[in-house]
């Protein structure tokens, strides 16, 4: 990261190679659209390059990068006033992540349920449970306290259980 901050293109390539794919999938989870996730991935990495002077030496790269991606998704949602995520056709049969048992009905229900969560709750759940960031790492980059992130995640899970009643006990 230090070499990238100093403008080393190869260091950028290494960072991109390591993080781009999972980051794009995270953005697709947040936005519900592959095309939007592509745009937001580009925006995230351009922002990373432009704002790399704000990276604190010694900090972890992954939480920082995911914070930029989360901001990009929020900004996009604000600009497009996009609330109801359409899920039709977003996940064609057989295109799910390899190695995972495929359950299209549940996946569609989960996508719809995630889309209905308030963005802060959705981000807290996805970042913590599915991207492996700690609550403290999410909090530092979101500019809020760790307990606030925990409360968001807890409320998100409660709401998710309500929305997925009958599918996820």
């Amino acid at each position: 990261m230090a070499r990238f901050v100093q403008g080393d293109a190869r260091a950028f390539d290494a960072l991109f190679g390591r993080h781009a794919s999972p980051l794009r999938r995270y953005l697709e989870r947040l936005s519900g659209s592959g095309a939007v996730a592509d745009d937001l991935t580009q925006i995230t990495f351009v922002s990373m390059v432009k704002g790399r002077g704000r990276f604190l030496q010694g900090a972890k790269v992954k939480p920082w990068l995911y914070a930029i991606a989360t901001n990009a998704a929020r900004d996009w949602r604000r600009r497009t006033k996009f609330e109801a995520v359409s899920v039709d056709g977003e996940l064609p049969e057989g295109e799910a992540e390899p190695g995972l048992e495929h359950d299209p009905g549940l996946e569609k229900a989960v996508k719809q349920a995630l889309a209905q969560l308030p963005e802060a709750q959705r981000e807290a759940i996805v970042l913590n449970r599915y991207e492996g960031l700690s609550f403290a790492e999410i909090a530092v980059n979101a500019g809020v306290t760790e307990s606030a992130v925990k409360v968001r995640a807890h409320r998100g899970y409660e709401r998710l259980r309500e929305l997925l009643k009958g599918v996820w006990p």
Partner: protein
Amino acid sequence: MMTKTPDERLDAAVLASGGAPKSDEALRRLARAAREELAAHPKARPWWMDGLVLLALNLVMGLGAAAAMSWSDLQHGSMTMRSVVAVAWLLMMSVGSVLWLRPGAMTSRLVVGAGFVIASVLAIGGASGFDPGAPFFRGMGCAFVECSVALIPVSVLLVLSTRFAATASHVFVGALAAASGGALALHLHCSNGTIAHIAAFHLLPAVVLGGVAVLIRSKLRTRTLVP
């Protein structure tokens, strides 16, 4: 095949909702714009550079206003308190100008916020109680001076705050630091030593300015989405 628990089924569904992985070639295309940006600007701008810009502006405006206006001792209970409060505002103005935009945890913003509270408590605690009369008229004059001194720094702060994903706390404490220049000038100039006057016309305008800055920032487009 082992039966999955409901939690495992949910996890699998959420992971699958991320869609299919992109090919390496498709991903590489997504990096093009960032690579071009890096080639165009190989040198990063450290975050504290913007803080130095604001610091210089705050010093010019705050110290300029303090030097331009007449000084009065009537507001202060003692000359010691006059000096202590002046140093508190000076520190708040200078350290706060840089610290408000420090990336990372909330701690630095909390320090700036605490600095404003401490300076405010000292200003009120060191007040003489002297009342020259015409509280509203004089009070509005003080509020006007404070807002005028802070106007340019707060405007610049708003522009600087679009260079990252500034939260309300960034903008609010940044505006408090910018308003501290006006508070310093008033501390040396104003002859009204009543607690009500200092609270309502020296301190409250800074808080209101912070609120207005947050409101304006929420309408501005963020140019770079780094935290």
